[in-house]
């Protein structure tokens, strides 16, 4: 242990760590926290379930409550309250799913696994009552007005006598039709997701499970129902004694659903990612090609207007795309690139930074090599791609990496060129759009944000040296 301390406190010259050292490390560690905690928080949130996110969960890890469903059914025996454990998450959150997601689930077969009041509760929960009732009416040739009956005004309802028809049916069908028509003693059944907590019995010490609808941290007690006897009414449990059953449950569907196109709707994450990959790769190739050509001309030839061209290219640094939005929008439209990914690729393909960086590097390639190539009967184009391009590879690699990052993270050019064409949205536009519109699907948005981080982070981790030397040598981003 003392060795470890010695290791961290040692300095060159074997002096002990001074106060400035401690301040330095303290500052660095603080910086580390400020930079990485938010990123880590994002990553952790991206594997939290939709339920947790909606509850504004402040746990660092995706600790999900163990959940139970509390259902209320009504029948001839009166009101029944039951608690169902071990239901799948999509059953619990059926109400939050959209039509497409619901259509994928075979709920009719699913509820066949249940009987009695559990069956009735789930039937109502999935909205199958009206479906089954309409089938029943059709099968048994019951009068057509029964279908419209639930939506009639009370005054209109008085003209019919549904009870007489219901009475002719068997017991199951009575219940179905009565639930549909709203005839007493049947009513719509309730279904809510609740949190499972437990507390030791004050006397016996035996662990007893309770179902809780919400836990308010500012209050001392929670309202709970016994799982074993839900009808027994609500008891108040002291909050500091209850055990909340939480388990580490990363919600991987946040990732798998959008990436396998299960999360349908207007957010097509796969297409957004594909568009971004296409833009990034093609734009980087074009950027490297034309910028190295320009840099070659500026560094290896003497010609009239050389300095003028160089200054013109550097001058474009002064007016960035964000300021020229209106004009670029006009030009993109005029050149027929609007709404196409090429409208994102081409306007940004020529970069003054790239030309400058490559030119400075190419100046260091000896002219004798070019002359040797000319003696070797090489054309100027051959000299460019067989001699200069390979020799400038170190600088070209730096530009390539920078270009990948620029393009992947770019927001302004996609906004100008493809705002009106959803099919051509890049990942950044998609995320921006998605976050604004669908708060209910935050779990997908967070997961896709993390996915969008992966390429740049990988590039950073493995090619950091190139990036830092590139920036440090040109002083440009």
């Amino acid at each position, binding site marked *: 242990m003392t060795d470890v301390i010695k290791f961290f406190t040692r300095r060159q010259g074997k002096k002990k760590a001074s106060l400035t050292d401690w301040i330095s490390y303290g500052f660095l560690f603080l910086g580390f926290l400020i930079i990485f905690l938010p990123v880590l928080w*994002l990553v952790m949130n991206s594997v939290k379930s939709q339920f947790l996110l909606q509850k504004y969960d402040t746990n660092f890890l995706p600790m999900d409550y163990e959940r139970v469903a509390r259902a209320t059914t009504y029948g001839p025996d009166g009101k029944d309250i039951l608690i169902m454990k071990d239901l799948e998450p999509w059953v619990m959150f059926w109400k939050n799913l959209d039509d497409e997601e619901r259509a994928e689930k075979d709920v009719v077969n699913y509820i066949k696994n249940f009987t009695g009041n559990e069956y009735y509760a789930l039937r109502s929960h999935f909205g199958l009552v009206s479906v089954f009732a309409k089938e029943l009416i059709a099968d048994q040739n019951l009068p057509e007005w029964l279908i419209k009956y639930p939506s009639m005004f009370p005054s209109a309802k008085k003209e019919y006598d549904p009870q007489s028809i219901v009475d002719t049916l068997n017991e199951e069908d009575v219940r179905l039709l009565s639930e549909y028509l709203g005839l007493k003693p049947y009513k719509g059944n309730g279904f809510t997701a609740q949190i499972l907590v437990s507390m030791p019995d004050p006397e016996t010490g035996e662990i007893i499970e309770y179902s809780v609808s919400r836990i308010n941290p500012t209050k001392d007690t929670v309202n709970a129902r016994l799982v074993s006897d839900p009808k027994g009414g609500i008891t108040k449990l002291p909050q500091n004694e209850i055990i909340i059953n939480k388990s580490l449950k990363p919600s991987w569907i946040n990732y798998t659903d959008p990436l396998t196109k299960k999360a349908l709707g207007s957010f097509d994450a796969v297409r957004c990612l594909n568009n971004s990959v296409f833009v990034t790769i093609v734009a980087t190739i074009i950027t490297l090609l034309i*910028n190295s050509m320009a840099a070659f001309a500026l560094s290896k030839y003497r010609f009239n207007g050389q300095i003028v061209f160089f200054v013109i290219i550097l001058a474009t640094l002064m007016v960035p795309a964000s300021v020229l939005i209106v004009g670029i929008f006009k030009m993109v439209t005029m050149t027929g690139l609007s709404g196409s990914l090429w409208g994102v690729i081409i306007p940004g393909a020529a970069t003054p930074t790239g030309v400058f960086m490559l030119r400075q590097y190419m100046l260091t390639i000896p002219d004798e090599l070019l002359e040797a190539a000319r003696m070797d009967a090489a054309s100027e184009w051959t000299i460019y791609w067989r001699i200069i391009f390979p020799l400038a590879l170190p600088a070209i690699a730096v530009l390539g990496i920078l270009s990948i990052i620029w393009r992947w993270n770019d927001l302004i050019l996609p906004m100008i060129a493809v705002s009106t064409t959803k099919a051509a949205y890049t990942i950044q536009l998609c995320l921006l759009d998605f976050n604004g519109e669908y708060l209910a699907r935050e779990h997908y948005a967070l997961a896709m944000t993390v996915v969008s981080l992966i390429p740049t982070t990988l590039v950073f981790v493995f090619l950091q040296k190139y990036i830092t030397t590139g920036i440090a040598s040109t002083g440009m981003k």
Partner: protein
Amino acid sequence: MFESVINLNSWFVFFTVYLLIGFVLSKEVYGFVPKLMSSIGWPIEFTQRLFGTKSLPYLFLFPNILIFGLFTFLPLFMNFGFSVTDGTSINFESRDFSGLDNLARITQEVQIDTGGINVENDKFQAALYDTFIFVILQVPIMILIALFTAIVLNREIIGRGFWRAVFFYPVMLSPVVVAFLWTLILKRQGMLSQTLIDWNWISEPIQWLVDPSWTMFWSIFVYTWAHMGFYMLILLAGLQSIPRDLYEAAQMDGTSDGRVFWRITLPLLMPILLVVTVLSLIKAVQAFEELYALQVGWISLVSYIVENAGIRGQKTFFGLGIAAMASLIVALILIILSLLQFYLTRRQVKL
């Protein structure tokens, strides 16, 4: 998958034909890469064969200059055009010349079209004022932090590469991601409010990003968080270029640490510090993407331009003209700052 890529606009056709011609002409060339490269470069090959090497540099420059011309210089002129015309259309035929009306619309107290009180004027001035406040506060704060970090990293620190990477990492994040990251923490029900409530520091959640008394603070904080690493890196490179023996000489003379900083480090770092300051001024004036995605409670100059241009969302009748006029004003500010930067870096750029 790429339906939007292969909508056959004329550019695509043009390039296909261009490459096909090159492909046919390079029939004597074998191997994939040589064939591809001669298919791309055939006009240069032919010019050299027919007219010699005199005009070749211009051909090598052509693609770059074409793109700069089409998407940097022409847009600048287009902006001039839009700024002196009215209308929702982007076609100049259906826009009316209006002289400096757009300038009046964003600067004068009185609405020139109706004679009433001008609201646009207030919005633009608010954007100008808020951006000014943002720049004035953000730049010095960021430069100071960046300088301090660079100095710390220039010491004999264990794991310097690691720390440097940590501080640089946010630069790699896209503005949208940065915004989400912090929205998650700063929104009404976000991490920060929740935690402070748990600690009983505040009783009601605060909308950090929208609340007028907090929005500027967090704008500056997030913007600095995202960009500080870049300037830190340049400053660190500057610090490392100061010869070691100067410090050793100072040590031999028994100079105190503070004196070494004020008399050696700072003067030698000054040129780079100046450049970095101007560079960050330029970037701060253009601040837009992060702030836009964060949906902060104020409008920066570039946000003002984007919103009026109606590229995302509703077009208004005067919007395009106003946006163009505003962008000319911003461009003017940026050009002045850039010339200053160019003046400061002129020694780096060998002409």
